[in-house]
């Protein structure tokens, strides 16, 4: 075990799957105590590279050297034992087991063959303290919020005395404060000479915490630089393979800066309260042709609001008006009939029907409209599907391809098409670009823009401030289930949104005017 030279060196890594070369002579070098970002679009190969490192895949060619020793991990367990831990995007812990049990699952401290609960709890508390986290370790993991769950995952990683911690999109479910806590933990790891690989799409975070970045594109490593040496736009340009000047011109998102001319009121929500305690008293209004951004921290009630409007969850109190007429949707089918569509937050659990084809997923909500006497009109179905595949540029081998084989971005397009083919008047979009690579993200954002231009009303929930700022005509902010601010176009800035999310509206910054 040497203490000089890089901790990790991956060189000449190639990997092919049937029909596609995922990696071609890719490389990755991580120094000791270094926080190293890996960036690139989906399909660029970064997740494949990481999976080879962590033992989920076997490489076809190349070498992996850890601390001077060649390694070849066959399984995540082996990687773990070898000193490489992974924190996944979705918290990969078990919800019913306690915090302490999760940290020590598989290596429980024992006494006479039975679990030594006292020691396990004490150790768990100690590990979490090192991360600056205080939580009751006997609580079921699932009963604490996602950010804390991530901390528990990290505590588990540390308990293995890892030399390298791989973090795969660790902040996608965290708010600003929680991200700050995570960064504190990462700095602590750095101080302990533990290296971190930080895989992320989020530029701000990468620049805030990482030392170096490896950029991947088309299965190859195109850059390995210190972050101090490369500017944002250049980084994005390198990822996209585009010209720097071009990116500078058209902005980082697919939204343009122009506002939309908003017309009549489509949706008016006043004092909406849902079942459960999350949605308390929300107000929002959307006009035809405008994009209203809905901002808020995790748990502030954004998704609950969208679901309540859509009839997916029961409404306990409040007023809901569509086109000026009071309505109450008993089920999503009612809302759909009224011309509303909802693209849910989690594609996998609530969006796609994985075994069904692109065609069937796309036309799922349209079935009543394209059926006569209960029989599906194949020709109309085909025509609709062809039209939307073309219009949205959905990359698929054919309408019969199983939707689960598509990339995240293309799946999202199919889900959007599911609503668009109904010719809706109002779209509720919950994190429409989450988990999607930069290229497809831009396309979807541009699409949303286009839809608003053509007269659709859009309520867009997003955790990406950049997206909200560039895309919204107005922004409504929720906190603890209540509407606390409404920002008119001129007042929309990242700072204003953050201030409202955290504390309530800053002085004078846009008060709720009910419209």
């Amino acid at each position, binding site marked *: 075990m040497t203490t000089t030279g890089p901790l990790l060196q991956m060189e000449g890594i190639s990997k092919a799957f049937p029909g596609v070369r995922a990696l071609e002579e890719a490389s990755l070098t991580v120094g000791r105590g270094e926080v190293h970002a890996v960036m690139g679009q989906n399909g660029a190969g970064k997740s494949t590279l990481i999976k080879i490192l962590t033992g989920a895949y076997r490489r076809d060619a190349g070498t992996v050297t850890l601390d001077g020793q060649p390694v070849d991990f066959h399984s*995540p367990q082996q990687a773990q034992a070898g000193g490489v831990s992974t924190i996944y995007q979705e918290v990969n812990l078990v919800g*019913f087991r306690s915090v302490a049990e999760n940290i020590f699952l598989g290596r429980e401290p024992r006494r006479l063959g039975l679990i030594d609960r006292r020691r396990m709890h004490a150790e768990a508390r100690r590990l979490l303290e090192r991360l600056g986290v205080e939580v009751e370790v006997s609580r079921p993991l699932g009963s604490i919020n996602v950010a804390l769950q991530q901390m528990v995952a990290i505590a588990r990683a540390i308990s293995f005395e890892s030399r390298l911690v791989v973090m795969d999109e660790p902040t996608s479910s965290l708010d600003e404060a929680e991200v700050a806590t995570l960064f504190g933990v990462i700095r602590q790891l750095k101080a302990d000479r533990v290296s971190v690989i930080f895989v992320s799409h989020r530029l701000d975070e990468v620049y805030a915490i990482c030392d170096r970045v490896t950029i991947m594109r088309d299965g190859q490593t195109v850059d390995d630089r210190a972050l101090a040496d490369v500017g944002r736009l250049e980084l994005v340009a390198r990822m996209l393979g585009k010209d720097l000047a071009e990116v500078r011109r058209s902005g980082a998102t697919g939204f343009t800066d122009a506002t939309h001319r908003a017309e009549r009121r489509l949706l008016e929500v006043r004092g909406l309260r849902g079942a459960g305690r999350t949605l308390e008293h929300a107000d929002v209004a959307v006009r035809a042709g405008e994009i209203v951004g809905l901002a808020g921290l995790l748990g502030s009630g954004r998704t609950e609001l969208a679901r309540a409007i859509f009839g997916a969850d029961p409404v306990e109190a409040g007023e809901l008006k569509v086109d000026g007429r009071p309505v109450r949707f008993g089920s999503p089918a009612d809302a759909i009939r009224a011309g509303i569509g909802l693209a849910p937050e989690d594609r996998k659990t609530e969006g796609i029907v994985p075994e069904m084809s692109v065609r069937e997923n796309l036309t799922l909500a349209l079935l009543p409209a394209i059926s006569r006497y209960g029989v599906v009109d194949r020709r109309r179905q085909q025509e609709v599907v062809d039209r939307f595949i073309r219009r949205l540029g959905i990359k698929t081998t054919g309408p019969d391809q199983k939707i689960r084989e598509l990339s995240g971005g293309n799946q999202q397009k199919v889900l959007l098409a599911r609503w668009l083919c109904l010719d809706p008047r109002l779209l509720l979009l919950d994190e429409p670009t989450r988990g999607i690579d930069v290229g497809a993200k831009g396309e979807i954002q541009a699409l949303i823009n286009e839809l608003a231009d053509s007269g659709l009303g859009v309520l867009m929930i997003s955790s990406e401030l950049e997206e909200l700022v560039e895309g919204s005509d107005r922004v409504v902010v929720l906190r603890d289930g209540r509407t606390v601010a409404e920002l008119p176009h001129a007042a929309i800035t990242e700072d204003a949104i953050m201030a409202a999310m955290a504390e309530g509206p800053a002085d004078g910054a846009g008060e709720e005017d009910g419209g």
Partner: protein
Amino acid sequence: MATTSAPARSITRARLASLLQGQGALVALALLVLFGALRYDNFLSAYNVTSFLANNAKFGLIALGMTFVIMTGGIDLSVGAVAALASVVAAMVSEYGLVAGIAVPVLVGVVIGLVNGSLVAWGRLQPFIVTLAMLLAARGLALTVAGNQSVAVDFESGFTALGTTTLLTLAAPIWIFAVAYLLGVLVLGRTPFSRHVLAIGDNEETARLMGLRVERVKLAVYALSGALAGMAGVLLAAQYGAGQPAEGVGWELTAIAAVVVGGTLLTGGLGSVVGTLWGVLLLGLIFNVLNFENGRGVISLSPYWQSIVLGGFLLVVVLLQNRLAARQT
């Protein structure tokens, strides 16, 4: 299979539901006991209590094994047939004495359990269909080996002592019942094994990523289920004096009912051995009460009514549990 963690609300709700179900079963059990005690003479007599417990020991053992299997998110439909097979085997080896009469059938159960477990764990086949097939196979084996008739045990070899010996006035089956459940509670509460079982039922993919040896654990629970079914078969043979290849029909389903009533989640991840105990006693007590009711001569319930009552009871109990759980959260 989702890999995202379930939201906090639903975790708490599920835990609460499970807890309430187990407690609900206990309450129902207590009420039924009270009802019986008040209504019938001799309900709480030593004779009734001990024979009730002795007779239900075999169902208890099967339900215990089922609890662990269900906690991994699986199911074992073969246990009734395995018990029948084991009873035949027990009768056939009973001439070699008590030890052989216990060891060999239990071993047979273990082997069957290992086959089930292998197909589920390594073959990646669904537990429902695997154990369904095993149900047919075990039944076929039992009938074949027994020549389509019951097989008398050897009454000279001491095997039948299992049914008749008493310790502190309690028959051996009752002790076996009690010890099995005590061990079960201990294992579930304090061993790493049980944590792994529950983690796998909670989210198998995640458990695997966390380094658990999923296949081995699954193999172990099915082997355990088989072993307990084997022991149940031994008790069957000892208590009835003969191995019965055609017995055990539907035992797996009543075991599942007992497990669910006791608060173990059918989807896995959360379980209660004590709850299963209440479930077993509750379901068994219904028959006991029906017998007493018949004995009073006020109503004469044909045995056919028993299944209606049992089904109805299951319906009401689960209904109430679901209602209770929903209201609390």
